């Protein structure tokens, strides 16, 4: 039998440790809150105004994106004019983790974090009215609207609890951008042809759809056995064929002649994977790597006209993706990259 007295010093020591731990957590939380409230470190504070509707595409091109500037606009779909990227911004009443928009139709992928985090795709119109909310099977990754605004595609990660084997899989779906009706529930169900022969493996994953400007065609990444391919799919025939190897997250140029994508470089830089932006000429098969951007680009890039490519980049490689900027680089690699839109992520260009 123990005496209560022998218990006391231990209970006291434990209580002290618990108090110290709580103080540590509270202290760090204060630090985080303080940082979040601090004004942006770089440049003048951006001016914001509310945005009720997406302007009709007139002479002035603009980008819609997710704002990553800490403050009221954080996470909101935001508009900036591309002829005055440092000028005033307007923020829409919806927040997204990933957003894309074209011709009056938008798709917004969002994680509603809670005890049970729910992931949704929200289809919206040019007045940010919600057309449809769709449940997603996992955290959002890529989103695209077809140039004519009729279709939307998105990729999510489906994570098997990763004890040993299942690891990650992706799931890519295409829906009608107006009604939300499913056009393709999961691309993995479609047959793939490579060099004229059927191509099939159980570990097929598809991600990063980009739509052709007319008709039912689209491109996407096929991943299997650690390799990636560019596939071309057809919504009319429900078939895909392999176009090229070593292509991730394709993005079709407005003229429909080139695919910009991220290419994984062999080896890695300082323990990190390195992806370069590259451009594939579909007619000749020639690949131009835009190596003047030496940082790793992990994004499905967006074309700004036929000559420039936009992509997101974390503000600071050591930091979380809470703050990202959008950079631009000439599609032929003739000029080095430059910062286009600070505090922006997931841009969609409307010209």
């Amino acid at each position: 039998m123990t005496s209560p007295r022998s218990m006391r010093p231990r209970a006291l020591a434990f209580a002290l440790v618990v108090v110290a731990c709580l103080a540590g957590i509270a202290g760090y939380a204060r630090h985080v809150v303080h940082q979040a409230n601090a004004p942006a470190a770089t440049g003048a504070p951006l001016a914001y105004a509310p945005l009720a509707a997406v302007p009709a595409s007139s002479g002035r091109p603009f980008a819609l994106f997710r704002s990553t500037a800490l403050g009221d606009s954080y996470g909101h779909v935001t508009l900036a004019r591309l002829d005055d990227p440092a000028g005033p911004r307007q923020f829409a009443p919806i927040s997204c983790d990933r957003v894309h928009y074209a011709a009056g139709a938008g798709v917004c992928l969002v994680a509603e974090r809670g005890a049970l985090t729910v992931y949704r795709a929200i289809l919206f119109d040019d007045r940010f009215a919600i057309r449809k909310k769709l449940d997603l099977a996992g955290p959002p990754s890529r989103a695209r609207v077809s140039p004519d605004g009729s279709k939307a595609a998105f990729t999510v990660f489906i994570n098997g609890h990763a004890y040993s084997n299942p690891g990650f899989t992706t799931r890519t779906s295409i829906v009608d951008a107006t009604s939300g009706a499913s056009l393709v529930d999961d691309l993995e169900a479609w047959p793939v042809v490579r060099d004229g022969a059927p191509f099939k493996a159980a570990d097929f994953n598809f991600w990063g759809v980009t739509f052709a400007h007319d008709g039912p065609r689209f491109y996407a990444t096929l991943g299997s056995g650690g390799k990636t391919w560019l596939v071309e799919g057809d919504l009319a025939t429900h078939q895909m064929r392999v176009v090229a190897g070593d292509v991730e997250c394709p993005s079709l140029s407005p003229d429909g002649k080139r695919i910009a994508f991220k290419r994984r470089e062999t080896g890695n830089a300082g323990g990190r994977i390195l992806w370069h932006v590259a451009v594939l000429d579909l007619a000749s098969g020639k690949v131009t790597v835009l190596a003047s951007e030496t940082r790793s680009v992990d994004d499905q890039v967006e074309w700004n006209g036929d000559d420039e490519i936009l992509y997101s980049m974390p503000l600071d490689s050591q930091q979380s993706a809470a703050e990202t900027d959008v950079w631009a680089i000439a599609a032929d690699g003739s000029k080095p990259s430059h910062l286009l839109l600070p505090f922006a992520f997931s841009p969609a260009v409307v010209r």
Partner: protein
Amino acid sequence: MYQLDPKRLQDLRFTRIGGMAANVYFLGLTSMLTDVSSEMVTAILPIYFVFAMGLTPLQFGFIDGLSQGVAAVARLASGFAADRWRRHRDVAALGYGLSALCKIALLAAGGAWGLASAAIAFDRVGKGIRTSPRDSLISLSAAPERLGMAFGIHRALDTAGALLGPLVAFAILATLPQAFDLVLVTSFFVAIAGVAALLCFVRDVPTPATPAATRRLPAIAAAAGLLRDARLRTVTAVGFLLGLFTMADAFIFLLLQHKLSTKPAWFPLFYALTSLAYLALAIPAGAAGDRFGRKRMFLVGHGLLLLAGVDLLVVDANVYGALAALALLGAYYACTDGVLMALASAFVPAGVRASGLGIVATANGVARLFASLLFGALWQARGMTFALAVFSVGLGCALLVSIALLARTKKEPGSI
């Protein structure tokens, strides 16, 4: 000053709460805090890796495979070390402490995925190190006829922590979006509190000194000596055999997700419901094992897993079928995880308890890892229904063999 009064050091072992040694509750408290800490990180890890660090799914999978083998070795070695030095608590504290440090290392790693994978691997090693000495302490603290109950209490507290962890993480992220660093810092401090609970309240249970001659033997030889006991050999073999046909919950969740593909929002619920069933049944199952025989309970548990497999094969895209499968899975854990340790404890002398439990747990763990690889391969080659069918038939056969094997061993001490 540290006061070395053996009488004082022992008192907590004899303190009883509801007839159970205080050590068991405090080990449960430590596990609960540690699980809150680790599960809050696990819950955000996929999001953190993919969004904050820009890792690819492939790399994430690679990290996982690497650390599993190292952890198995650590579990064996720590069991031997704990017995050799007769300091179970301190070896366990080393494991808990290592895992706590990994939370801070993960924060410091920032975007360098090499460092981050090292932190996760060492977290697994920490788990490997603490498991054998901790289970051995539980078994040494409880009366032999109440071993199942003791492990049940511990596993229930442990599972409660696993359920709480994600809630804490998401509460933080709901208040401060993107504050992954705060989640990691909180996780670290919660883990430290867990280590403090261990060091402040848990006391080693004196075990008879290993004879000098034995002590000089290499650890492996001592372990081989343990396996000369036919009963422990049988338990190890049965644990290994049944482990070979155990479908990992990861696969069961994936299967359910395929079946209920119209309701993807259900996915995070699978884990929570399984844990809830485990939490609710851990103590009753342990007590039932004490009363009706732990061997029987262990077999019944695998029978429940078989039922879950059959349920998944037969019932089609049905919410009730899914709920039944998850409840069965939770019940399987309740009837097997702690029960196997309680069962084995009866056949291992106190002086080499941690080594013996380490061997049994590792044999079972290695078999389950192999089962996961096999299940994955079958799934890829012939589809999920085929894999599930093979495993159900295999588990059924393994159960029959296990019943025969266990029937031949003598009744365990302390059970009817």
